[in-house]
């Protein structure tokens, strides 16, 4: 199940030759977990930096540019500062759940990364229900938000958490259905196979009109999933202080913060995998060098992340009723219609293939 790059193969062989199979398997999993954790903790920090620079440019500002070259170390310094800060909490908080909540959020965010195919063999966990696993994992994160909001015994946090619950439960549907539309073409939930199908054209080209509609719905619902503006009612700085994480400080706050950015990356990564051919290069120009797949994957994901930042710094926040109207009256019926159209297209063989 665990595939690895060829450079890691020697470690793999050495582990299996020097100890019993179960032990080696276990150690290998721990190693991979540590590598992923290290990579994505740093990547998350850089996403925060990118967001801040991009936000500044949208608002005709400059953004952080003092710490390190062009501010590259700014978020590292912020993380160090947060690490050294006191962990405060409210007197009447439900201590156990209060402390548990941030870990729920960050662990689910990191778990989802395991199935994402960064390049040919760079995928920690290639299960046959990949997409389903991603959808399921990304909806567990909301439990952390609900727990955090409820247990911190603060009315703003509670309101934020409840809004987040409403929002995530509604938009989960759209995410699932829009991905399902694409599954109709691939016929498989396994991510490596979805990539395989796209060797004859990215799915957004193969599925043309319904695929583009599905992509638009996916991006809207995905932005809502990550609780980012214009769907950031769970945090809503101007209304609720900081929403569900009002009472968190120091590193626990940083977990929530980091999880938001990793989730954003995951949403972009899923879109890249399902719509834009994951690590496949455009027109197969670098097909002979599989390691460049990482570059293509990250490039596509970053473009989508940028799109989400663009949304955030353009649109004003929705009200709760507008949010639900958008989902239940517009996105959901359109989505169902779209699935039927897509089914017809696949049935009549109208997909565009190269």
């Amino acid at each position, binding site marked *: 199940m665990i595939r690895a790059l060829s450079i890691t193969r020697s470690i793999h062989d050495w582990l299996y030759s020097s100890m019993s199979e179960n032990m080696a398997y276990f150690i290998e999993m721990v190693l991979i977990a540590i590598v992923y954790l290290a990579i994505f903790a740093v990547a998350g920090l850089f996403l925060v930096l990118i967001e801040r620079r991009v936000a500044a*440019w*949208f608002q*005709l*500002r400059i953004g952080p540019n003092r710490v390190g070259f062009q501010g590259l170390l700014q978020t590292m310094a912020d993380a160090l500062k947060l690490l050294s800060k006191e962990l405060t909490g409210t007197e009447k908080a439900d201590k156990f759940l209060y402390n548990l909540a941030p870990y729920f959020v960050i662990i689910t965010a990191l778990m989802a990364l395991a199935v994402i195919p960064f390049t040919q063999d760079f995928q920690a966990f290639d299960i046959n229900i990949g997409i389903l696993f991603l959808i399921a994992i990304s909806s567990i994160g909301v439990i952390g938000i609900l727990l955090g909001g409820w247990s911190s015994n603060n009315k703003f946090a509670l309101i934020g958490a409840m809004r987040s619950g409403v929002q995530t439960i509604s938009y989960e549907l759209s995410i699932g259905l829009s991905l399902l539309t694409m599954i109709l073409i691939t016929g498989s939930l396994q991510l490596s196979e979805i990539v395989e199908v796209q060797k004859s054209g990215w799915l957004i080209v193969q599925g043309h009109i319904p695929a583009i509609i599905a992509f638009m719905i996916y991006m809207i619902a995905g932005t809502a999933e990550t609780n980012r503006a214009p769907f950031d009612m769970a945090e809503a700085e101007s209304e609720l202080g900081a929403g569900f994480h009002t009472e968190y400080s120091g590193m626990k706050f940083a977990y929530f913060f980091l999880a938001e950015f990793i989730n954003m990356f995951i949403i972009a990564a899923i879109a890249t995998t399902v719509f834009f051919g994951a690590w496949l290069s455009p027109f197969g120009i670098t097909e002979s060098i599989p390691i460049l797949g990482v570059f293509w994957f990250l490039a596509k994901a970053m473009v989508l992340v940028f799109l989400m930042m663009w*949304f955030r710094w*353009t649109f004003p926040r929705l009200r709760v009723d507008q949010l639900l109207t958008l989902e239940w009256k*517009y996105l959901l019926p359109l989505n169902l219609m779209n699935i039927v159209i897509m089914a017809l297209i696949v049935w009549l063989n109208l997909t565009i293939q190269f």
Partner: protein
Amino acid sequence: MSYFSDIYKGIKTLLTGMSVTGKYFLTSRKGAITQQYPDNRATLKMFDRFRGEVIMPHDEENRHRCTGCQKCEIACPNGTIEIIWDRGIDEETGKKKKKIDKFVYHLSMCTMCGLCIDVCPTDAIEWGQNFENSVYDRTALTRVLNKPGSKLMPGVED
């Protein structure tokens, strides 16, 4: 059918908004309004409407326009301005006349409301652009705005 036209209108307006912010994003590096202050101290130019402190401009012959009417002193809500005045002999007419000795301005009490500048009938005082006013002793913030030996500009009172 308004359902579908709503969707069309919604998407269109969203794209309009995104094109506006997108343009700002692309031009931002040239037009950034951020002033990286201590670095560009030499070239920094404040905006015309910036209210830094109240100043009294003097011309080359060390003359100002203040007649000592004390309207600004009365208008100031904080008692920031104190006019210490005197009676002197007017050179032209030979009559006794009111003139200022010291225009005392306590910057530490000023709220930059601008009432004194609005009320001055001869436009003797105006806004200065300096904002680097931090000092270690607050008495340093009490200023005399008319320069020593300065006189009233002729023709101001006509």
